[in-house]
């Protein structure tokens, strides 16, 4: 269906199901319970999940298929964001032009950076992309302050022209981003007993974009073009000897993944109209590498899982402070409570990086294929046990 094999179509359906029902799935704990801390079903985090999934899916097209490890991919998300905010400042608050221009500008810049960087491979390529990204960051942070807003970021203002829309709303405020009148901030709330589920317009817009991006990635992975990219990864020299030039393929992959990053950047400003230079910092570039490897490089669903795990840690674990811990362990006797809290505290709150780091190490050491490999191993375990049960079950059957 849709040009996909049965298995890929099932995967697509799973992703569609997960994204559409995410507001339910990620809010499993009732509002009043102490575990509500772990709920992730609020618009900001949901939007982040899908937007960074798009970013990681795009990165995986380059890294997972061709093996070229770009350490400067955050530059494209930042450039996309700046382009998007400028469209909102100059043209209209409708997010469609902003997103389209984000993709186009990111494509253009990735073409230039890719053309230069892809002259080298391996570690040299990584360092070149890192250098370009840091250049973009430094330019945005200080040199280009009139265009990028510098440290304080590029923001909308009351006196922006916005020639196809209004500069100021009737109430005297800056208008908010919308899709033909549907504001990305709009939410519907569904209260069922103690549970409150929030359905946010911006999230569903981003989710549809993510599903399209995912579908495109599947088609790309299964296409002859995708096979060429895998050939680059397995042995580029052999490919050259057979008379094929790998350069156009790698450059195309680089630009496509740059466009994915531009789409992610455009969606970020569509949800929250501000672009800051920190989006392009090398740590942000490193984060997408972590996402892809944590989830499983070269797999379809891996980057999505990795993006989800990292964003969950960043948003949920970092908010667990000492007061929250004291609330959880209040039932313990005083001395024991302090011991337990002092043992857990370094791993939550501002120490969330530590937890993530340990998890990343465990995954890389024991599950080199990422979370996807973990899932496959679990699946095999159950299937094997199921078979064994069936085999053991056979002789018991009365032989009539």
């Amino acid at each position: 269906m849709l040009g996909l094999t049965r298995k890929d179509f099932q995967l697509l359906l799973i992703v569609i199901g997960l994204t559409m029902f995410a507001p339910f799935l990620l809010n499993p704990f009732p509002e009043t319970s102490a575990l509500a801390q772990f709920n992730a079903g609020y618009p900001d985090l949901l939007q982040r999940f899908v937007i960074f999934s798009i970013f990681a899916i795009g990165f995986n097209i380059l890294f997972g298929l061709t093996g070229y490890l770009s350490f400067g991919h955050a530059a494209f998300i930042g450039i996309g964001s700046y382009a998007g905010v400028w469209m909102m400042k100059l043209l209209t608050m409708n997010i469609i032009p902003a997103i389209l221009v984000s993709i186009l500008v990111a494509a253009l810049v990735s073409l230039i950076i890719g053309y230069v960087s892809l002259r080298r491979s391996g570690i040299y390529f990584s360092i070149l992309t890192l250098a370009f990204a840091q250049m973009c960051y430094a330019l945005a942070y200080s040199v280009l302050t009139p265009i990028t807003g510098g440290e304080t970021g590029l923001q909308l203002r009351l006196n922006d022209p916005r020639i196809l829309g209004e500069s100021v709303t009737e109430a005297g405020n800056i208008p908010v981003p919308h899709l033909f009148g549907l504001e990305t901030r709009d939410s519907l709330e569904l209260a069922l007993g103690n549970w409150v589920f929030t359905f946010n317009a911006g999230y569903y817009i981003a989710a549809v974009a993510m599903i399209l991006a995912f579908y495109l990635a599947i088609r790309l992975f299964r296409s002859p073009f995708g096979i060429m990219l895998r050939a680059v990864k397995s042995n580029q020299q052999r490919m050259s000897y057979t008379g094929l030039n790998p350069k156009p393929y790698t450059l195309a992959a680089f630009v496509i993944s740059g466009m994915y990053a531009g789409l992610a950047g455009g969606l970020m400003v569509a949800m929250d109209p501000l672009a800051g230079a920190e989006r392009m910092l090398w740590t942000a570039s490193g984060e997408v590498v972590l996402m892809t490897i944590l989830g499983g490089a070269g797999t379809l669903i891996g980057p999505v899982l990795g993006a989800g795990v990292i964003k969950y840690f960043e948003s949920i674990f970092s908010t667990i402070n000492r007061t929250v811990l004291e609330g959880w362990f209040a039932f313990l006797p005083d001395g024991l409570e302090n011991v337990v809290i002092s043992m857990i505290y370094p791993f939550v709150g501002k120490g969330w990086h530590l937890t993530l780091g340990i998890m990343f190490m465990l995954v890389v050491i024991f599950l080199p294929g990422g979370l996807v490999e973990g899932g496959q191993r679990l699946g095999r375990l159950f299937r094997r046990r199921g078979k064994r049960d069936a085999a053991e079950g056979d002789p018991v059957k009365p032989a009539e």
Partner: protein
Amino acid sequence: MTKGTLSRRGLLKAGAVTGAGLALPTIFTSPAAAFTNEPTGDSVTLGFNVPQSGPYADEGADQLRALELVAEHLNGGGDGGMMQTFSSQTLEGNGIMGKRVEFVTGDTATNTDRARASARSMIEKDGAVMITGGSSSGPAVAVQALCQDAGVIFMAGLTHANDTTGKDRRANGFRHFFNSYMSGAALAPILADQYGTDRKAYYLTADYNWGYTTEQAVQEATESKGWETVEKVLTPVGAGDFSSYITPVLQSGADTLVLVHYGGDMVNSLTNAVQFGLREAQANGRDFQIVVPLYSELMARGAGPNIKGIIGSQNWDWKLENQLGAKYTGTNAFVRSFGEKYGFPPSQAAHTVYCQVMLYADAVNRAGSFNPCAVVEALEGFEFDGLGNGPTLYRADDHQCFKDVVVVRGKENPENEFDLVEIIEVTPVEQVTYPHDHPQFAGGELGACNAGA
């Protein structure tokens, strides 16, 4: 595939599905509150968004201490701190408008994206009705714009760039801390007094917004006193080693070095400057001098003995009331309750957020509502005293506090690690007041207050 004949079972199924579909919108409710996160229970949630990692983590940790303290005081715990000395006496230790104060914390990491994500999570997930904290201008300006869009109040923490209440001012945002212009205006007369009116200044400026505005403010203020500017050099943020920028200073003909750096950069550049012998050097027949426009206790601690004799400005200092008398009442009350709880005196970063939360709580009580627009109205043009800075005005035109500015100097013989600076003088508020459309602040508009949903 079966052909589409309509069976009884199929019809029933279709009917049920359509019915459910039609009924669906009626169980969804758009938030019906009058404003974003209207507190309905017996408690109200405030969001404390401070840097817990990154270059300003020390300031953030101190802010968090003060914020926990102010929540305790508002709920009637402890000794009440500045609640007793505050000129407006609407707070009674029963929370805000009788609702118990609860708070959530987040990490801004001194990163605009992280700061906004953290603030949005407080607003969307935890139902915070006010956000405060922050220790640099980038995140402050970003979160202020977010709060304006979301319809909650933002009480800025430590943010010194002019932009926060200048070109990036917002109706829902308020700043208690002083700014670059005030630093310049407060420092210039004292510098002229101490070092003479014909100094030649060399600027090393951090290459971002705060650096630009502070450099401009100090330059304009000192030039009006007769100083000359020899050269202005931009330095990258987080450079670590500034020696290559310090070397040309002595050959430039300048006799004063202005270090427009903050945090770790300031500690490093000052250390480099002292190591290169600038403190002992002579230029134009006079002692070479170094000036640091924005001082903080935490930076002074980091720079150690290098800070001795160096002049800078501060929003507040914990010795203010002891040294300059009852005009700065509130200072001792705050220092006492902070010291009793944590064992050392508070920094100015801690003081400013403590005041901000107290001012917000009082404004809600006076307005009789948590509605952001009512709070904005209550804070605009509000005159108060007893929060440690002397008589203070929250100006309606740009939501900036106007109060005296403290000019300090690194102490020659500090008695302990918290007593590193001595107060030289306090520049009275009249000298640091400027019109709200002053060129250094031009280009911004407050817009209208936004109550959200």
